[in-house]
Each structure stands twice: as structure tokens, then as C-alpha cells.
């Protein structure tokens, strides 16, 4: 077990920062109205966050756009793991074709 003091403090700073963002939401939730437009915004949050995370990588190039469309079409018909395998196979094949 080797721990460099600077590395240790960097890890602790990252851990503290991350926990603050996670616990900050609990604090915020008690201070915002639980209905109306704020409610509508929070209800939409899962889709808004998930789409924002993947939008750049899903549109990085033609191979990624096609693979993302394949995943979107497959997602209602296949279990999640099968969708992942299909999309990964698709992106690998198309990247190989595209050079």
C-alpha cells in the first residue's frame, strides 16, 4: 500500500466535491416548489441528462449515428444487453468499413 500525500489529498478533494454535488440535491429539493413548472422540469430530467451525456458521442461520425439509430430501433424489441451487443458490433463494423 503506497499513498503519495499529494495524490491522497487530490483523491479526497475529488471525493468531497462529488459527494457535495450528490447531497446538494437533497438540500435543494426542500427549497423548490414541488408542483407547476419546476415539477415538469424535474420530471423531464432523466431524459434531459441521459440524452445530454450521450449526444456528442452518438453523433461523433456516420458510424456512431447509424449505430445509435440501430440501438434506438432495437431498444423496444430486445433486452438491454442484446441492444448493447448489437450497437457495439454495428459501430465496430461501420468504423472498419469507413477506415
Amino acid at each position, binding site marked *: 500500500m503506497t499513498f503519495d500525500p499529494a495524490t491522497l489529498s487530490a483523491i479526497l478533494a475529488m471525493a468531497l466535491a*462529488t459527494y457535495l454535488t450528490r447531497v446538494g440535491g437533497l438540500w435543494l429539493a426542500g427549497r423548490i416548489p414541488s408542483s*407547476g413548472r419546476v415539477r415538469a422540469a424535474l420530471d423531464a430530467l432523466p*431524459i434531459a441528462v*441521459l440524452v445530454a451525456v450521450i449526444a456528442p458521442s452518438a453523433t461523433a461520425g456516420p458510424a456512431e449515428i447509424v449505430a445509435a439509430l440501430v440501438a434506438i430501433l432495437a431498444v423496444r424489441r430486445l433486452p438491454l444487453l442484446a441492444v448493447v451487443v448489437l450497437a457495439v458490433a454495428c459501430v465496430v463494423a461501420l468504423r472498419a468499413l469507413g477506415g
Partner: protein
Amino acid sequence: MTETALPARHIGDFRAGVIAILPLVVAVIPFALILGANGVARGLSVSEVVLMSALVFAGSSQFLAIDLWTHPAPALSLGATALLINLRHVLMGASLSGKLDRFSSGGRLLAVFFMADEIWALAERRALDRPLTPAFYAGLAVPLYLNWVLLTGLGAALGGLVDDPAAFGFDFAFTAVFIGLVAGFWKGRQSLAVAAASAAGAIAVHALVEGAWFVIAGALAGVTVAALTAGPDKVEARP
């Protein structure tokens, strides 16, 4: 946490959580191995990599930190970067907060420690159908957490086993998993407007601004559209 509930019910909820998280546990394996290997390549020890995964437990900010790592480690800028890339968790935690009424106050503080994107998304998905229980949440958190800590450590111990994830398409597994998660929340035309705004905001900011701002920008664009297009039934119901 209700002491009067049957233990069998807890076990059933825990198992349902484990089953829900399993595809994500598998999808995250290559990333964990790569993160560990990159960490060692950047001069961290195996135990430092394990400690980071155990205390931070946030994939995207760990990848970014390893990318930015120098020696001696700049604690302040790495902490600030983690704060920025994880700002979305404030919104996510605020949303999840209303679904944690089965949790004790200590349980809530513990639960949010494990609030990685995948766990949060599946917890929110569960709350659409039935009350979110601590047992179900634990079923999500325990496998993903142990898997992440152990496999980042394994990646660090093995070194450059998978040095180019894109060559195997592993980088796209994460994208596909998130497409699957989005489908679980889909509610027709209203969702399409939110997703379109979020994608447009994220892609534009990603192209123009360095760093992780695109996630929070896209998320804010999406929720703004949701707030603006909320039907009168939602807007009139004030507390």
C-alpha cells in the same frame, strides 16, 4: 426503513435491483479496466486507484481526472473539475429526493453517496412504477460499486490490457446503455421535445466549449423546454 415489513420482501426487492443493474455491471467492465490501467500509466499506485474508485465512485469525473493528472497531484484543480463535471448530480439528487420517503435521514445521506448516473436512472425508473425501497436501491448499488472498485483495481494491477477501447467498440457500449435507459422514461411527443433540446444543447456546447459543460448545458436546455411546454394541469397545481 420499515422494520415491520417481511424480510422476504426485502430480499425480493434487493434481487430485483440486482437484476436491473446487471447489464450495466457488464457494460462498465471494460471502462473499469481501462481506467485502472490509465491510472497506473499516469503514475498512480494500484491502491491509489482503488481508493479513488471507492471514495469518488463517479466514472466520468475519474476518467477526466486521470487525463488531467500531473505530479504532484493538483488537489484544488482536480477537486474543482470533479465539482464541475458532477454538477448534474445536484439536479438529479433534487429529483430523486422526492422518491426517498422510505429511507431514514441517514439512509438518504448514504444513498446519495452511491448516486452514479446508472443507479440514479434505474432508481428513478423504479419509482415510476412503485415506491423505491432501500432494499431495491441496495440491489442496484452493491453490485455496481463492488464491480467498479474491484475491476478498476484489477485494471491497475494488469496494466495496459485494453489500451484502445475504441478498437473494440467498447466506448460505444456506454452510449447504447444510455439509449436503453432513455427508452424506459419515454413518454411520447413531450419527451421528443425534451430530448431534441437536450441533444442540440449538448452537441453545440460540446463543439464550442472545452470540458464537461456540455452535460449540464444539454440537461438545462431539456428541462427548460419541459418547463415551458408544461400543460395547464401541471402549472395550475401549486402547493
